[in-house]
């Protein structure tokens, strides 16, 4: 009798043990805490990591299932990225590729491996077309949204853009070149002169030639699509050449506090469009402080946590966590599969109320995704550097998605044709 009891107990324990092993959701992140882009990567990675640490500590994961959040270091190198992708794809429910190069590598494989790609606010803009890119998501906003919003914003400033000149200082790389077709289209519609100025990967830190050109051309505005060392290079060069900082705009990846700290008050007036905003008073930040910072689990520091990029990392993880939670509710399961997470990402509905519930007031605009719309087009704010920190300098802007939907559909179609046989999801009809 006694034996039976111990045996039963052992069986129960072992089954629990097995369950505990299976009961976790593996969420890898292809991070880059080393290499030339580490300075911008670390705050983002810390934000992403801390949000999941907080969920694990506060709620015991999502829907009672622990999140096994693991980083795989790529150093922003495409080669390492592919290595990490191969290493993690066995159990992963999502791929967060991070660099444009890695996204380009992984995107064609998404239909074969059937793991959703989540590229928050980066990657290939036509990924918004959920019918063609069934497994890729770039919520809450893509680069073409940013370009559209910036031009709408500039058009609304003193007398419109007609007859003006906009210089586009960009990294000479897929990432920087991507919005050019849209800018050219907008330039012919609104009647402004569009002047692309490429910055080679080797010239990122020394942009004197580009800024000489800017001085000669006297553009009314400079819009920057920069990353890593290029941002700091451009901003210091702009200050050196006494360019009017209030005429200088950047995309969301060009709004890193540390880059502006280098010039401090001289950089006041610089603006960056952003779909995230750090709100140190938000409920989620307080929870991160109690459950992650105070228990010594964070890798971050208070300075960094007040910055734009840390806040953005938190928002990114929140979007993924919401997708996982949505998938759990829909399929009534704890441990979700990649396919179910894809459903979750496709059916995100982050309303103002839901964001307040999550303690994310003012950190990201409300948005929702659908089968056809994998971006959500949340809109964004213009943030202005006041000499010490970024502050909101505009109401929520919205992208004119209808204005470029033709371009988007054409690019998506071109991609599908170039990669034939490429399955297209015909079941969703409504386009963005």
């Amino acid at each position: 009798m006694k034996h039976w009891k111990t045996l039963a107990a052992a069986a129960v324990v072992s089954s629990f043990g097995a369950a505990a092993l299976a009961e976790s959701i593996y969420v890898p992140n292809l991070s880059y805490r080393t290499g030339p882009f580490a300075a911008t990567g670390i705050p983002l990675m810390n934000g992403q990591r801390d949000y999941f640490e907080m969920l694990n500590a506060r709620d015991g994961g999502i829907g009672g299932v622990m999140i096994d959040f693991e980083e795989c270091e790529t150093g922003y190198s495409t080669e390492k990225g592919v290595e990490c992708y191969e290493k993690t794809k066995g159990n992963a429910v999502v791929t967060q590729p991070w660099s444009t190069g890695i996204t380009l590598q992984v995107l064609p494989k998404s239909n074969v491996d059937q793991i959703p790609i989540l590229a928050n606010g980066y990657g290939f803009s036509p990924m918004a077309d959920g019918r063609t890119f069934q497994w890729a998501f770039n919520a809450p906003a893509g680069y073409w949204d940013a370009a559209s919003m910036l031009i709408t914003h500039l058009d609304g400033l003193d007398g419109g853009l007609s007859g003006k000149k906009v210089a586009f200082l960009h990294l000479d790389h897929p990432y920087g070149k991507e919005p050019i077709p849209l800018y050219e289209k907008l330039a012919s519609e609104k009647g402004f002169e569009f002047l692309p100025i490429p910055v080679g990967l080797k010239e990122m830190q020394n942009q004197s030639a580009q800024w000489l050109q800017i001085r000669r051309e006297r553009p009314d505005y400079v819009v920057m699509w920069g990353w890593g060392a290029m941002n700091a290079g451009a901003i210091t060069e702009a200050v050196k050449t006494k360019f009017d900082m209030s005429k200088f705009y950047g995309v969301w990846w060009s709004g890193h506090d540390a880059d502006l700290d280098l010039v401090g008050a001289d950089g006041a007036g610089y603006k960056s469009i952003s779909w995230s905003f750090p709100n140190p008073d938000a409920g989620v930040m307080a929870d991160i402080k109690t459950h992650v910072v105070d228990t010594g689990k964070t890798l971050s520091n208070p300075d960094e946590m007040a910055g734009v990029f840390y806040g953005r990392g938190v928002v990114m993880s929140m979007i993924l966590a919401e997708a996982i939670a949505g998938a759990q509710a829909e399929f009534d399961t704890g441990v979700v599969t990649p396919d179910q997470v894809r459903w979750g990402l496709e059916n995100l509905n982050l309303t103002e109320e839901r964001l307040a519930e999550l303690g994310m007031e003012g950190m990201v605009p409300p948005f929702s995704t659908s089968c056809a719309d994998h971006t959500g087009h949340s809109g964004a704010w213009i943030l202005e550097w006041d000499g010490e920190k970024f502050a909101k300098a505009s109401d929520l802007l919205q992208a004119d998605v209808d204005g470029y939907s033709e371009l988007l559909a054409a690019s998506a179609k071109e991609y599908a044709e170039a990669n034939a046989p490429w399955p297209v999801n015909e079941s969703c009809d409504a386009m963005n």
Partner: protein
Amino acid sequence: MIYRTVGQFKTSYASDQALFPVRQDAFLLGIILLFAWVIFPLTASEFAFQTLLIPILIYALAAMGLNILTGYAGQLSLGTGAFMGVGAYACYKLITIFPWMNPVVAILLSGIFSAGVGVVFGIPSLRIKGFYLAIATLAAQFFLVWLFEKWSWLYNDNASGAIQVPNLDMFGVFVAGPQAASITQYFVVLAIVSLMTVLCINLTRGNQGRIWKATRDMDIAAELIGINLMKSKLTAFAVSSYIIGVSGALFVFMWRGAAEPNLFDIPLSFRVLFIAIIGGLGSIMGNYLGAILIVGLPVVLNIVPEAIGLDIKSATVEHLNIMIVGALIVFFLIIEPHGLAALWRLVREKLILWPFPH
């Protein structure tokens, strides 16, 4: 003991000049080929194919191309990455202009474009030598990468400026693109690399190889014994660039699947040069040993902490990895400055003499 050559008599000139004068060498090669053609494909995982087997073979081929030029003909080149790019872009254009073309044929043809470009940039070698020539090839490196960025015809005016490999099939089986299985790609790469290796071994052992070696060792003396230096140097550039071009096409079509211009920038050239130097200049086998050390070892080191259950952060592993690989490179170069191939030669000689070290 294992390498005892007792009783292996050479009774004809042909047997004396054979590729493997010692029977054990042929036996060893047989084992390696057995592993490469049978055992690895049967046992390797997707991860092993994509991060170890395929890249090692492709990098070894690129280093072999460079070795022909630098190791055999003595012409230092820093433009390997760009020549790989020429092969990759040529293959991409061939495939998109002639979609019916067999991918393997396209890959082998793309090397011809690279060979042509290589010969053009090899012309300065007739006048300048050594480090000065390295600078001239460096110019090729910068110019070609710039061209890949600016000449939008090369990437079919794609908005992002990158080339993407479409799904290509051969006799109904996908060999390139996202639909292709790793094992198919591995066999295609292995077949091409094996073919090139056989070609290189025979080329470097024959008349042409001797002409190159003479040019390398002392070009004035070579000229005096009647070697046409122009022909010798330019054939070295052509053959080397052809092989590098093929490796570049394999690099993008059989492995990466997509490429942006800066992929072919100078770090790639240096990587291939390191493989050639650490493996051993003037050796064919060295390229494989070098590729295993430079390409394969970091991947293996990365999975070691996890495999033995150590909980180290991924970023820390990466830092450690860089330090360990760097230290190993220094270590191997100190114990054998002529590379891993020379180290193997030494070990083999000792084994043949064993147990009588005299």
